[in-house]
């Protein structure tokens, strides 16, 4: 199992967390931790997602990136 940390920025839509969680589970990544907040000034949400999986993290990054409300996904570390 490898551990990864993702930094996601997204439009502030109520459903965006649900979408990220659904994709993460479906694509075979387990969640170790999550931290999410919204900047009410800019209406941009930031989500810090800690996940682990046997699968390469690029698979998840590409899938989260495909979600319409997502602005950016960054891999913060490759710690394992």
């Amino acid at each position, binding site marked *: 199992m490898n551990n990864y940390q993702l930094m996601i920025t997204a439009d502030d839509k109520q*459903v965006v967390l*649900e*979408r990220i969680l*659904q994709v993460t589970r*479906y694509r075979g990544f387990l969640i170790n931790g999550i931290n999410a907040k919204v900047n009410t000034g800019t209406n941009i949400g930031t989500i810090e997602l800690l996940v682990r999986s046997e699968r*390469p993290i*690029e*698979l998840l990054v*590409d*899938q989260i*990136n*495909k*979600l*319409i409300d997502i602005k950016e996904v960054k891999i913060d570390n490759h710690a394992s």
Partner: protein
Amino acid sequence: MTNEKKLTGAGLLFNVLEQHGVEHVFGYPGGAIMPIYDALYDSKVEHFLCRHEQGAAFSAVGYARASGKVGVCFATSGPGATNLITGLADALADSIPIVAITGQVATAAMGSDAFQEIDIFGLSLACTKHSFQVTDINDLEKVLHQAFAIALEGRQGPVLVDIPKDIQITEVNRCLDKLVNLENKVKLPPANVGSAIALLNQAKQPILYVGGGVGMANAIDELRDFATTTGLPSVSTLKGLGAIDPEDENYLGMLGMHGTKAANIAVQECDLLIAVGARFDDRVTGKLNEFAPHAKVIHFDIDTSEINKRRIADASILGDLKVNLPALAIPLAIKPWQAVCHEMNNNFAWDYNHPGELIFAPAVLKEISDKMPKNSCVTTDVGQHQMWAAQHMVFDDPSNFLTSAGMGTMGFGIPAAVGAQVSRPTDCIIAVSGDGSFMMNVQELSTIKRFQLPVKIVLIDNAKLGMVRQWQDLFFNGRLSETDLADNPDFIMLANAFDIKAKMITKKSQVSAAIEEMLEHDGPYLLQVKIDAQENVWPLVPPNTANDKMMEST
């Protein structure tokens, strides 16, 4: 000042539909969508009442696939909305642009387990490309424009818009005169073709692997130019059928589980695989780590997430095929390999010799294919008949062969044919169905009757869930569990009950005349073709096996 009458949300919906050129929608009314059906009454949009929301969704899919336009379907809240889900899933798997509009209980009642309330927005997350729930009337117009844009942009797909009943009746000013232009979210860097060109030039035994993405990108001409200029031997996925010119002498047919022997062997032996709008689906690859084991891979796609998903690409070309295919169209020196492929094509050609009186389905489908008018559109259901249609019918465009490829959904064929016929009223639309699948959306015969759609239905009747029976015989020791359909209804009487002319044939000697009668008939027609229940689809690559270890007819 003019005292212009204000629009309601429902009226605005039809305004936006008309703005997007929507002429036809498929749907089914109910409580939470009544304001929309009330506005429909005054609209220019023509509504086709289906007899099940799943039928409406598949008709929208068939409409989109046959015409290249966005398919639109309506359903009410709760059970109406959940009945759409299989159609949305099918559209997601095959990347089909449809917009589904669902009614929802009023915003004040939402979240209270109200009558016919279900969280369709939540349910949509796993079966749509994107979805919206409109809780502020001022968002409605923009959301509807976005729904159409998202359905069509990049890799196409289904979009759901859930509209609560109070939003449908709230008055609103139209604010946007023009369609919003969505800034393209995915900004792809210009493709780097250098390394791909090098791979092409080095290859001695390259194969072009064509998927459904070519048709979706409307890049048939570019693909055919690419195939001609390079001289590449080619294979197709189920959804890609029709993209390669079927007359191309380098074309080897469909690959995968029920692919041709020539296609599968050529792919296993190739040293370079050029995947174009294809996604290395498990039905294509067989045992993944033994698929095309000697090949480097060039992968063309519009969807970044398909690159390296199931097979690492040595070069990836992201973006629009219409732009990227011409950039790689260079002549290749591969004469000896072409000759090997031609020889396989000759050696492994289909054999239509079949002993006995009983009808041989592959031969019937081939004869229909030979006799059907140009520009006919064939839909299928799912099972043996689907694979026989894919193997033995010839298509010159992917929009002329509509089959549930990614999801493999029984019940697809009849409603998809309804949608195809509505979009192409003068073309011949033929639904190839099986006796099991036919019963899954049999209520849509009523839609055929209601709109007098001249759909031709070829019912390949083995009185079995044939494909499952085949697997039980081959891989489950012949333990035939729940696959016998000897108690099927009288299909002729059933068709007649919907004013559909019908005929049953049981012997080879009846085939030609029956096909001609069906094709010449003006209105809808059902041809029931009784076949031997023991027939299998060959070749067959057993599960989790390399594609060159196929089983063949004995």
